[in-house]
């Protein structure tokens, strides 16, 4: 059955080197097979890699950056504001993607394109301005050194309108910090895998978009009825109000209680002073408003203001759980105002809070243990909870000053420089680990190890199930649940919607087959959509294996095997190496990959077109 609506069927390709701008048609097969978002991205990145014989410098002009919302982005259904940024990650040298909420992706679609890809390198710092059917590359060297926020303001002024959405990089991106992020709508960030550095390497400071087109929807009435049912379900959920109030900040308490909250660089999983940085504390003293991504009723964003003390006047849209844990408990910081200040600084400079918190945690521990000498860290003492030193280090990373220069190059280069840091820093394949300890549950560990972008939680966040339902599962079940998450979660990225209504409030995933049907007019089932998503996982794995990844890389940070959790409900836990290897073999088998984790030729053939 055909795709009758849901897409503009247009691909906008920009080459910044020669200023060439093309509008290409997307074929029916492409839309059906790859759906949107990271599906489109993975395919375009794959084609680009093939064109360059798999020899690509992530920060070279030949690397392709793909920005792709999905067919559901921007339409009337819960949390439809997501947009993916896809490329070859400079941090890991393999497939990388990150998605952002807000409404940038919605505006991009409304300009009449389904996917934007960018190659080359502009001769001077420039922005890309997409105004409905016209696209321009505008040099704006005056944006150099500006924060993402200032950048938005200057662009509004220059272009004479505020009615647009902007994705911008900060100093971190300009300086090609390998974990630089892209800020959309001020603080809805595509944070991970260093997409900001790629924009920086292309001399692309920002993408400003204005779109006014109707989003193509096949059956509006059907969609509205289905969406109303979904919104209704959410609003009646017993935790709905908690979500509106605290957003992801409620996870701090949860994670602390279940012993998975990163504390003192993942040395521990329980933070004694958790009540100083949790959602209650935020509500009590800091929160001044709600903020939501497009079409979202859950409003997970919290606008916070520091009203007194040293950080008075700090405003952030956030923090959310990850940022608060990585910049809070993980660094031993028990002052919520300081967490806000650090979060705001990261947003302004445009660097990822998860990687930043992780690396600073490693520096503190490394220094404490004597792996890093005082001279190594520019003769500036640093210790757990030392707010000033932490803020200073964040700045130094973005500006690449002193030790910040090496830190800005991420885990792999830090370990190259100080091999002993391998035991301290938590990363998989060069991506610093998210804020869930995996020693508590082996499925979570398997999820990190086999994630296609590195140690990131959004691919398989199985830890909640492990915590709540116990872990007396068979090996098959453990592998199955990881693969199910790795299949369903990416589907949300492909459709261009947020996964939180499903994972957090249990919105039935069946809704999405109906949403897809009403929007595209194509009859389908969830199972079929999941097949497409599974294919994309194979494709991103192929990209990685062609870039040199194999079984030896599907591993876990040293601490996860070797350093038992100190206190709390998971005290004493580590992951057993042999058990993990056994699970990994089973995982490959279920995926249809060989013992070395390489997908066979018949899988690769699927993407030859």
């Amino acid at each position, binding site marked *: 059955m055909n795709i009758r609506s849901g897409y503009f069927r247009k691909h906008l390709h920009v080459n910044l080197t020669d200023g060439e701008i093309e509008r290409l048609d997307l074929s029916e097969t492409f839309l059906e097979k790859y759906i949107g978002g990271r599906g489109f991205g993975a395919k375009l990145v794959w084609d680009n890699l093939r064109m360059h014989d798999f020899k690509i410098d992530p920060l070279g002009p030949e690397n392709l950056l793909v920005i792709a919302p999905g067919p559901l982005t*921007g*339409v*009337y259904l819960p949390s439809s504001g997501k947009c993916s940024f896809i490329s070859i990650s400079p941090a890991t040298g393999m497939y990388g993607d990150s998605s952002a909420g807000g*409404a940038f992706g*919605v505006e991009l679609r*409304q300009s009449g394109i389904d996917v934007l890809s960018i190659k080359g390198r502009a001769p001077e710092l420039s922005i890309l301005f997409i105004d409905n059917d016209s696209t321009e590359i505008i040099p704006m060297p005056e944006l150099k050194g500006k924060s993402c*926020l200032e950048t*938005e303001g200057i662009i509004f002024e220059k272009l004479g309108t505020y009615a647009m959405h902007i994705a911008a990089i900060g100093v971190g991106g300009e300086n090609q910090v390998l974990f630089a992020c892209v800020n959309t*709508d*001020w603080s809805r960030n595509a944070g991970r895998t260093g997409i900001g550095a790629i924009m920086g390497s292309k001399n692309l400071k920002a993408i400003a978009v204005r*779109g*006014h*087109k*109707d*989003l193509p*929807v096949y059956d*509006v009435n059907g*969609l*509205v009825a289905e969406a109303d049912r979904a*919104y209704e379900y959410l*609003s009646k959920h017993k935790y709905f109000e908690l979500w*509106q109030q605290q957003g992801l900040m409620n996870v701090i308490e949860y994670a602390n209680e279940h012993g998975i909250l990163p504390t003192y660089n993942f040395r521990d999983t329980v933070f004694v002073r958790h009540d100083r940085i949790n959602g209650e504390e935020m509500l*009590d*003293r800091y929160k*001044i*408003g*709600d*903020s*939501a*991504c*497009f*079409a*979202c*009723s859950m*409003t997970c*964003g919290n*606008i916070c*203001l520091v009203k*007194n*003390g*040293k950080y008075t*006047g700090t*405003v952030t*849209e956030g923090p959310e759980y990850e940022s608060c844990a990585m910049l809070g408990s993980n660094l031993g910081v028990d*002052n919520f*105002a300081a967490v806000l200040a650090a979060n705001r600084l990261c947003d302004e400079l445009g660097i990822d809070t998860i990687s930043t918190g992780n690396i600073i945690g490693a520096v503190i521990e490394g220094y404490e243990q004597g792996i890093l000498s005082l001279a190594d860290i520019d003769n500036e003492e640093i210790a757990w909870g030392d707010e000033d030193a932490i803020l200073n280090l964040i700045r130094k990373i973005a500006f690449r000053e002193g030790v910040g220069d090496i830190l800005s190059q991420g885990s792999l280069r830090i370990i190259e420089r100080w091999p002993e840091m391998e035991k301290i820093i938590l990363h998989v394949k060069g991506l610093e680990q998210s804020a869930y300890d995996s020693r508590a549950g082996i499925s979570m560990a398997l999820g990190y190890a086999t994630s296609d972008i590195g140690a990131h939680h959004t691919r398989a966040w199985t830890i909640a199930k492990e915590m709540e339902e116990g872990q007396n599962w068979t090996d098959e079940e453990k592998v199955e649940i990881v693969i199910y998450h790795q299949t369903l979660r990416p589907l949300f990225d492909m459709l261009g919607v947020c996964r939180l209504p499903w994972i957090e409030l249990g919105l039935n995933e069946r809704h999405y087959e109906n949403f897809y049907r009403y929007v595209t007019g194509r009859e389908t089932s969830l199972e079929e959509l999941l097949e497409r998503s599974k294919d994309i996982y194979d494709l991103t794995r192929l990209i990685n294996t062609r870039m040199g990844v194999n079984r030896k890389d599907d591993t876990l940070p040293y601490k996860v095997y070797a350093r038992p959790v100190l206190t709390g409900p998971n005290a004493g836990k580590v992951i057993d190496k042999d058990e993990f290897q056994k699970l990994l073999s089973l995982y490959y088998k279920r995926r249809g990959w060989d013992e070395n984790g390489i997908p066979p030729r018949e899988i690769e053939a699927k993407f030859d077109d």
Partner: protein
Amino acid sequence: MSRKLTVIPEQCSGCKICELVCSIRQFGVNNPKKAAIRVIVVYPHPVLRMPIVCSQCKRSTCEEVCPVGALRRDNGVVQLDKDVCISCFKCIEACPFGAIYAHEDCEFPIKCDMCGGDPECVKKCPKGALRLIPEAALGEVRRLNNVLSYTQMKEIEFYEKGEKKVIQYAEIGKEEL
């Protein structure tokens, strides 16, 4: 009509569901740019989200400037008569709130018509930021909040080890940062 479509910006999250449902109701399409209500988000300080929608003013500027009398009050709602409107867009320029909109696909100005008395945006706003409030009750919430904030500002003085200190009621029970 004695009930007013009222905006409580402090409650608004900027989700734009109101824009979406308005465009679907007015034109049958998913296009927030075709809504008669718009949520303006201004960064960064203070972070503000302000839904802008027609107030159905009793002395409506838009009605006054319309050269052909296409805007007329009907049962408390300023209605646009498309048969009469000449699309000069004077009304858009004249509205003191910028609450009438233009879109290049649309021949006529886009203006809130209160959905016949039961506005979609009010029904679908997940935050209760849009309300239908009896005219006589307008401003009540503000008044109450102002009074409450005044009580919170009250301070007490006390002596500790011979030293004079001042604390605010609202701070009692919370240690200093």
